């Protein structure tokens, strides 16, 4: 927002005075970047000061065909931003950027530039921070194509006055983009997050990383205290089951043999875990 003689001047294309601007009429605070459906997408509009991998001044930004003038491009680790000298600008979150490229084909576009495709629709000076769920067309925008049936996109071109800067701009964006892998990608969820699979450890466990003991292994590893506790619990179980051996027609002796998951209670008359009735508290 620029201030002239007491009144805010809106950078929106439709009106010059903030007082007339329909964004103000929707009670949007100045300084917030918004989209057409009144969603506040970004909270700050200041150039980044941390993690700036590359910045390039004297860079014109063209947003969906509309020139925004000359400013400075900031390729930072958290977001890509561009600001002109007056504080107007926009920021993009890397997950919203589908692709970027260097175009040197002047027959396609008269200037060599860095092309960025954003998978959302932006308002003129706005920024998209999120994946596009917006179906609404930007009615103010000048659009190259109609987007009713397909995902809305925004095309941004950054035209530096120094064409040699295109390579480092591009490379810096590649690096920063790689810092933001797709969180929704289930395929790259690795079971071994961050740590390489330790083969020796696995070999000791006969191919399985042991997470529990079978009954026999477990018994041998019990301390004497543990064994006492186990016997006490088994006794309690046995008592409770003895009162219920008519229940469900299950014969305790034969049923005990069916439990091979290491949870057998070896008192000869108890069914482990099966009928944990309210009489016994564990």
């Amino acid at each position, binding site marked *: 927002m620029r201030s002239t003689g007491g009144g805010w001047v809106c950078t929106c294309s439709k009106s010059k005075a903030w007082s007339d601007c329909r964004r103000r009429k929707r009670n949007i605070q100045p300084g917030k970047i918004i989209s057409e459906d009144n969603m506040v997408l970004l909270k700050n509009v200041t150039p980044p000061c941390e993690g700036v991998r590359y910045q390039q001044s004297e860079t014109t930004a063209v947003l969906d065909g509309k020139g925004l003038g000359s400013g400075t491009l900031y390729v930072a680790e958290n977001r890509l931003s561009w600001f002109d000298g007056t504080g107007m600008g926009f920021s993009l979150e890397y997950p919203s950027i589908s692709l970027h490229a260097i175009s*040197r084909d002047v027959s396609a576009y008269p200037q060599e530039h860095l092309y960025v495709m954003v998978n959302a629709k932006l308002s003129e000076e706005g920024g998209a921070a999120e994946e596009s769920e917006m179906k609404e067309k930007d009615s103010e925008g000048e659009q190259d194509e109609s987007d009713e049936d397909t995902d809305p996109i925004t095309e941004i071109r950054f035209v530096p006055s120094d064409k040699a800067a295109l390579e480092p701009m591009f490379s810096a964006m590649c690096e920063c983009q790689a810092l933001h*892998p797709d969180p929704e990608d289930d395929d790259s969820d690795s079971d071994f997050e961050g740590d390489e699979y330790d*083969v020796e450890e696995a070999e000791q466990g006969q191919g399985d990383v042991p997470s529990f003991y079978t009954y026999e292994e477990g018994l041998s590893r019990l301390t004497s205290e543990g064994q006492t506790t186990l016997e006490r619990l088994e006794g309690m179980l046995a008592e409770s089951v003895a009162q219920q051996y008519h229940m469900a027609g299950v014969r305790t002796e034969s049923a005990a043999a069916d439990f091979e998951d290491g949870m057998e209670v070896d008192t000869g008359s108890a069914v482990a875990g099966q009928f944990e009735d309210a009489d016994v508290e564990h």
Partner: protein
Amino acid sequence: MEVTHSIRERTITENSLVVLLQGIHGHVTTVDLRDESMAKGRIVNVDAFMNIRLAEVVYTDRYGRATHLADFFVTGRNVRYVHIPDEVNIIKTIESQLQKIHRVRNFGGEGQGRKEYLKYKK
């Protein structure tokens, strides 16, 4: 192709077919994108997240309009297909990429070796 220094990326790579894409650096091929556009060019780099960098690209947008782009980077999320060139032997490429990853793990020095892999037998 250089094996990445990131353990996480190496693990992701060897557990997915991205390892194949990392073996075809330098080949010219077509990448079909999610929005039905296509990019044909020389593969410069593919990382574990399937982010792809191409050079000397003919980019055909979803409406069929073609432009030439000198350098091109697409996020893995937006890749639908990567065409594998006919001349590429897929199995051999995968095997050789996996070998490179295992070599990185096995050799000591520069913090990259892990001694337990000396016992690892295929």
